[in-house]
């Protein structure tokens, strides 16, 4: 999503978010992520105005005092930015890709099922199975920090069964243009 992203040409406007809207965003995030209200409050204080950065192709990035915290595509789920995820890694369910896939992930590729189901990969066990279209943190074999944020394209059980094709679509990854811009 952010493989090519230039603030000068891709941002069409920045506006303060109305307090009623920001309240609904806050509640949406609290319901979508595993984050405590207090933790969110410490990162995004209620008093601090949220700024909506409108970008091409219906991408909305939300920033607090210039630092992008999370973004959204059209009406879709909210994704944390990678820096935010590094600080609070537990807010999204995690999947892990094997070492061979890291190279491709860092080039912006979507994650294929075999990379997730192989020995180095990790998918949540069956009792915590992920549904399709769930935002996930992408971890990598042998690494501590997340390498990207993605959205599942099929359920985790389905991935195990089919084991072919795109399992997790990469939304943002280490070294993409959103990562490059610490401030907007």
């Amino acid at each position, binding site marked *: 999503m952010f493989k090519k992203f230039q603030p000068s040409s891709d941002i069409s406007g920045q506006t303060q978010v109305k307090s009623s809207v920001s309240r609904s965003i806050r509640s949406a995030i609290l319901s979508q992520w595993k984050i405590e209200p207090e933790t969110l409050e410490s*990162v995004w204080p209620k008093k601090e105005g949220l700024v909506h950065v409108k970008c091409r192709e219906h991408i909305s990035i939300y920033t607090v005092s210039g630092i992008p915290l999370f973004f959204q595509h059209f009406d879709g789920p909210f994704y944390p930015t990678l820096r935010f995820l590094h*600080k609070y890694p537990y807010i999204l369910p995690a999947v892990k890709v094997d*070492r061979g896939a890291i190279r491709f992930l860092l080039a912006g590729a979507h994650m294929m099922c075999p990379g997730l189901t192989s020995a180095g990969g990790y998918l949540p066990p069956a009792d915590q199975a992920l549904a399709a279209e769930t935002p996930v943190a992408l971890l990598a074999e042998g690494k501590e920090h997340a390498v990207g944020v993605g959205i599942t394209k099929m359920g985790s059980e389905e991935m195990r069964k089919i084991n072919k094709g795109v399992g997790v679509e990469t939304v943002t990854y280490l070294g993409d243009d959103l990562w490059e811009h610490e401030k907007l």
Partner: protein
Amino acid sequence: MGKKQKEKKEEASPPEATAVEPSEGPVPEPRQPKTVLYCAVCSFPPEYCEFGSRFTKCKEWLNDAHPDLFSQYYSEDALQSKLGTMTLAAQQKLEKDTAKKEAKADAKADAALKKKMSSQVTIKRIERNKRKHVTTVHGLEAFSIDLKKAAKQFASKFATGASVSKNPQGLDEIVVQGDVAYEIVEMLEEEVGLLKGVPADNIEVIEEKKKKAAAAE
């Protein structure tokens, strides 16, 4: 760079250091963010440096700044365990790829620097009215100077209006009211405030007579 942002964040969050599970206490406290170290060279967490395009430099930096981490990531053991998960051919290929990528990144950086060094800053004095002039400055953005902020600086320095506007070619330039061409040259040479990194040789001063200015409008 990432570290700086990090520190700011920490200041913003309340100072209590203990991470408390929110369900336990009557007054839940926010969980403390994890401190993540980012490489100063490639901005990745150091464990991902090996996939970046400046791996050699990243390694040097890590060795200097955080020797403990360096030994953790690049000790014989660590390298050995990494090797274990990969065939020799794959390993060699990866090494070759990394070297290639590094060379490419270097070439790219060189080209960017060259381009930067060869780009001109044009300062133009345009006659508005017999005795009145405006000065336009074009090409500062190539030296990664924020035009809006630079305009503000000019405005406060000369106590005149200064704005960023598009010239007839559709390129951004700073328009300062009044004839301040030589003062701006001086400022650029002395690197006042924001105006940093412009070599004196790349500054060009042009005078434009009224006829031309009228045609341009």
